[in-house]
């Protein structure tokens, strides 16, 4: 299983879409200019979403390379194969959290404000979003193929977009940390529960045979 985790983590970094990274870079710059001291938090949300999307894209590349056909010949059982996917997502949370700290540092340096609540929130968001994304998309990939996960992923982006837009147009970004922190514990519990349940649904989907 160690080899499969290495494979997925390595694929995450090597297979990252360069164009996507450029877009993210541009959005981060835009956020720093527009969102003020909250830029770090906003950019962390963006980073979390991107990492979730990238993980799901990696799962699809297994289909493209016919890796699954080969994987079934390896001495690894179905539970370990699926567990390696989930474990690889947990592994990439570390660079995600580091990234959110860096993004907050940039925003703090630019605006000379050091609000450590924002740092905490950003780190939590950077950790929870990839977990939630994987929990939803991976079972779909194993049961209905990658395209269903991709379609649902796109649908999932809209509420996130309107959530942020709502703060921008209404209460303002300053209300965002308070709202996020009040739901953080609940969101964390839901994410972790969903992540664990999703593993068993994925194993059932992966183990199906013609």
């Amino acid at each position, binding site marked *: 299983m160690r080899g499969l985790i290495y*494979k997925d983590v390595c694929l995450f970094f090597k297979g990252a879409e360069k164009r996507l990274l450029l877009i993210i870079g541009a959005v981060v710059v835009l956020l720093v200019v527009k969102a003020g001291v909250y830029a770090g938090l906003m950019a962390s949300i963006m980073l979390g979403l991107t990492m979730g999307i990238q993980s799901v894209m990696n799962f699809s590349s297994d289909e493209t390379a016919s890796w699954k056909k*080969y994987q079934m010949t390896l001495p690894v059982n179905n539970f370990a194969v699926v567990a390696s996917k989930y474990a690889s997502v947990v592994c990439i949370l570390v660079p995600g959290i580091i990234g959110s700290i860096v993004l907050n540092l940039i925003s703090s340096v630019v605006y000379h404000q050091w609000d450590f609540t924002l740092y905490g929130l950003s780190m939590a968001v950077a950790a929870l979003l990839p977990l939630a994304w994987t929990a939803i998309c991976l079972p779909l990939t194993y049961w209905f193929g990658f395209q269903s996960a991709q379609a649902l992923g796109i649908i999932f982006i809209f509420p996130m977009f309107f959530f942020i837009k709502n703060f921008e147009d209404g209460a303002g970004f300053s209300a965002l940390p308070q709202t996020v922190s009040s739901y953080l514990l609940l969101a964390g519990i839901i994410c972790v529960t969903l992540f664990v349940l999703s593993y068993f649904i994925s194993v059932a989907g992966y183990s199906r045979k013609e």
Partner: protein
Amino acid sequence: MADNCIVVQGLSKSFGDFLLDNVSFNVPTGRIVGFIGENGAGKSTTIKLILNELKRDAGHIEVFGRDNTNSSFKNDIGVVFDECTFHSVFNAQDMGKIFSGIYPTWDDGLYHKYLKQFRLPTDKPIGSFSKGMKMKLSIICAMAHKPKLLILDEATTGLDPVVRDEVLDLFLDFVQDENHSVLFSSHITSDIEKIADYVILIHQGKIIFEEQKDDLIYNYGVVKCGKKQFSTIDPDDYLISRKEKTCIKCLVADKAAFQKNTKTSLLTMQVWKILCSFMSKEARHARTDL
């Protein structure tokens, strides 16, 4: 040491209009078994069933003396498909690290020895490799954990003659250890001719014959007869027939006995050309009672 590393008995599997019908054969330990048949004959389906990638409808499969649903045998096998299934962004170094974390018996020294022997770069992405390089890497990865059995599904398809010879030599080296065996599926009969000890011919989901290569060369033959004469031949006396414009050709297991019993003319064809002619896409008529 078990006599057979793979035992397949009464294996059946249906997919829509395709039926793998009561397939039985053995892969003796220490031997290379060529598994031949035209595209769509059922070779890959049989291999997937052996690897327990598909659910069988009926029959029994043993690998190293255990039912193949017990996946412990996968530590001792190496599998190569007709295409490289590795991600194009990885390089040979990455593949070594991946497999070293999967196979407890992975030998990194042996892996690098093979990479050097086959002149494969360790730092270039697999996506930049030629078809031949990709197949060589697939074969090396299948061998570097020191398996006892190699299962090759059309692994030499699309390789140029030079690379093909290199790869076939590697398989011959592999079976120098008499505990090692190879099941080698191909529709390229020249590859089978070069390295196989046993040959199994599958046609439209049925096993036509399972023979030692030497028996195939010395005893098997093709006879040619007219339609009228063909109707007088007992179907038990030939394995498979093929209608042509002016005659009917029959593959027989004992050419001497057949000629003695019937007044047909024996074609002086090499056995491999015979097999090729029966594997062509033109009209084939396998005996239905096989």
